[in-house]
């Protein structure tokens, strides 16, 4: 049995020396056993050079006990023995091992699908480039390959999709990403300016600005060790739920658009505009950029703003509910969405799927419920919505229900606000960018963004500077699920399957 540092999503930062260091053999055996149980999944697993050797950290989430288990192991810097690959037993480790192997040239023995992940500029093997990405191929006279991208016709990010098809039927889809790699983790490490770091966090994935900023700020606040006013938690949760509503509505519209259902598309586009304009009226940015800052906020809610948000959200929820009823009762839409792009619960568990896509397949993965932080640990007892079918329809209906749930949360949070601070001034202070960070510590921010689990891990050096920032967007886990969803489907159903996941390219490529 190996030792873990056991913590939870609200506890303070962990000094590096308190994180147990185990041997790789123990690490491998224990993770092999633990990951076989669905209650555990890997939130992050990364390596970084530390004091002349390579230290590997793993954050394991225990959903049932709401615990975060942290452990580590180390190898000598020049030690090039291949480590037995965990991917071979548990495919959910795959993206993490690919990342470690690509960055540092660590070899994993028996890794079934050793491929580059995102082509960082400081990768170990410079000869591995996008031009020689090792696509999987199949031989056969009746098969043909269709390559889509990396540049796409719509206004979307770059990514290469290679289909191996027999006629219209997809046998295999391989997704090659990395075109959006910006070295954003590196940028966190090379600046000491906290404000700049916050702005960077907002740009990890443009559609999850609030989720990523919250994850980063949570991690920073754990390092500074100061308490923050409860009102700040509430405002952050309102921003997060507004973002969730906006994106889920946008996706409902996009799915309707992809099957040429015009009424659903235009109705949702209008509602999404209303939602993001509400955010803009609050903080001046439609995506909530500038809103989430450490230890304070520049846009404290006043009674008038709160009233405006509550009013708009109620109106959006009412109108959205009509769209939802229309979608549910339209046979042509049901014919397109039902039993299309099915991912089973077992597949999701194996891949370590997270967020709404996992919940649509019957796998309960929701940080708000399993590892609550902020208001989710106090005022709101979040009950996750879980669907079993795992098809496009389930993912769409998941969105519909989440929007209404988010609207309800926003209403409840703001009602508390209005009762408490109707006359009193808002207790939120201005942001504090200068608070010193605990030296030689590790802290993490775990947030359930609209797409799913968003995790930022910060490691500080002896001087209290951020020495490593490791970011994980939910997309990292879920891209593989999209590839599986397409197996056996018609190639013309790819767009709706893709849209039903709506994964982030730059969140994956960093």
């Amino acid at each position: 049995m190996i030792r873990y540092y056991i913590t939870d999503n609200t506890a303070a930062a962990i000094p590096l020396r308190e994180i147990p260091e185990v041997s790789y053999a123990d690490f491998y055996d224990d993770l092999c056993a633990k990951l076989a149980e669905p209650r555990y999944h890997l939130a992050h697993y990364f390596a970084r050079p530390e004091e002349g050797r390579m230290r590997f950290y793993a954050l394991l989430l225990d959903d049932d006990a709401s615990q975060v288990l942290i452990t580590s192991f180390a190898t000598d810097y020049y030690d090039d023995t291949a480590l037995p690959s965990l991917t071979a037993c548990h495919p959910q480790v795959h993206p993490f091992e690919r990342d470690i192997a690509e960055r540092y040239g660590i070899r994993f023995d028996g890794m079934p699908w050793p491929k580059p992940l995102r082509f960082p500029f400081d990768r170990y093997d410079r000869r591995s480039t996008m031009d020689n990405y090792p696509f999987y191929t199949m031989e056969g006279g009746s098969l043909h390959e269709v390559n889509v991208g990396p540049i796409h016709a719509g206004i979307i990010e770059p990514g290469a999709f290679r289909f191996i098809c027999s006629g219209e039927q997809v046998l295999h889809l391989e997704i090659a990403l990395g075109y959006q790699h910006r070295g954003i983790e590196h940028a966190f490490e090379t600046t000491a300016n906290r404000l700049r770091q916050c702005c960077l966090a907002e740009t990890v994935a443009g559609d999850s600005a609030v989720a990523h900023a919250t994850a980063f700020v949570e991690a920073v606040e754990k390092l500074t060790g100061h308490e923050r006013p409860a009102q700040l938690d509430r405002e952050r949760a309102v921003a997060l739920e507004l973002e969730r509503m906006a994106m889920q509505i946008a996706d409902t519209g996009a799915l309707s658009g992809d099957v040429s259902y015009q009424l659903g598309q235009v109705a949702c586009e209008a509602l999404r505009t209303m939602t993001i304009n509400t955010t803009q009226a609050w903080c001046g940015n439609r995506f909530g950029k500038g809103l989430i800052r450490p230890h304070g906020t520049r846009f404290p809610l006043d009674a008038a703003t709160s009233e405006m948000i509550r009013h708009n959200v109620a109106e959006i929820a009412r109108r959205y509910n009509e769209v939802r009823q229309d979608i549910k009762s339209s046979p042509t839409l049901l014919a397109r969405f039902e039993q299309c792009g099915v991912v089973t619960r077992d597949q999701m568990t194996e891949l370590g799927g997270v967020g709404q896509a996992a919940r649509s397949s019957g796998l309960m993965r929701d940080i708000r419920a399993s590892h609550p932080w902020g208001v989710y640990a106090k005022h709101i007892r979040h009950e996750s919505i879980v669907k079993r079918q795992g098809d496009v329809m389930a993912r769409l209906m998941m969105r519909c229900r989440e929007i209404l749930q988010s609207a309800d949360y926003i209403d409840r949070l703001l009602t508390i606000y209005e009762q408490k601070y109707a006359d009193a001034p808002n207790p939120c202070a201005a942001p504090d960018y200068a608070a010193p960070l605990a030296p030689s510590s590790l802290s993490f921010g775990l947030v359930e963004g609209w797409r799913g689990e968003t995790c930022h891990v910060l490691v500080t050096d002896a001087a209290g500077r951020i020495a490593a920032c490791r970011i994980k967007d939910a997309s990292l886990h879920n891209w593989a699920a999209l590839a599986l969803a397409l197996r056996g489907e018609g190639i013309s159903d790819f767009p709706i399957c893709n849209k039903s996941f709506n994964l982030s390219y730059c969140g994956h490529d960093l």
Partner: protein
Amino acid sequence: MKILNLLLILAVAIAIPGVINRTRARLAGRRGIRFFQHLYDVRVLLRKGAVYSTTTSALFRAVPSVYLGAALVAMLFVPVGDLPAVLAFDGDLIALAYTLALGRTALILAAMDTGSPFEGMGASREALYGALSEPALLLILGTLALLTGCTSFTDLFAVGCEGRYTIALLLSAFVLTKLVFTESGRVPVDDPRTHLELTMIHEVMCLDYCGVDLAFIKIAGWCKTAALSLLAANAVAAACCPNWWFAAPLAVVLTGCSVGVVESTQARNKLVRNTTFILTIAALAALVFFTAYLLQLNIVLS
């Protein structure tokens, strides 16, 4: 009279896309683009040159002209109500069907010529759906010929029908309207507005065309739609009011509004369902033909 006929067809061809856009916009709660926006778009395209992929051959360059030519010739066979068509001879029913097929074949060949996997997929889909909708078209044309005893559109719609054939005529009009949807690549068979190459049918075959060539293909599409819509409108007109002033507006309203309404309120078919959709049209066409045959034999079921 022939000149009037030609002008009317052209007017119908130009008006239909405008009416479709207007209907869609109104149903979506928008004001919509200018009624003649499609003409401005094509004017822009016509002023541009063309760029050709280096993998294509002369075939690829020749096809837009062939496609447009085929559509224009097909249009000339079509009368408006009781007016005589510009081109009329015995058997022009069949000529119309296969002139359209010629255009389709040319476009399929051009798509294959590019060597792009998208366009190959589009060509294969277009070939399949074309093969399935052809029997439907021929059966309906056969029905019309059977009811009137003529094999030229001009005679056919000028002769008119007896009252007991009304039901067969209306059903023929219905089938022809459905064929307008498949032939002009509209929802639920195809979606002319999508940007998703993998789901396209007609649009994907034209991906490598630009400028003048693209304009030709667009104009050909309008002509094809107008020709088939007028046939549907003529069938209705023959049943109640066989005059040109009734048939021409009816063609615009019938196609424009039905396409607009369907595109606003319905989702597209799953691609595999398209075959069923088109086969159902063909089956209905067969049923109409059979009904017409029974009516013509004057068998009274008692």
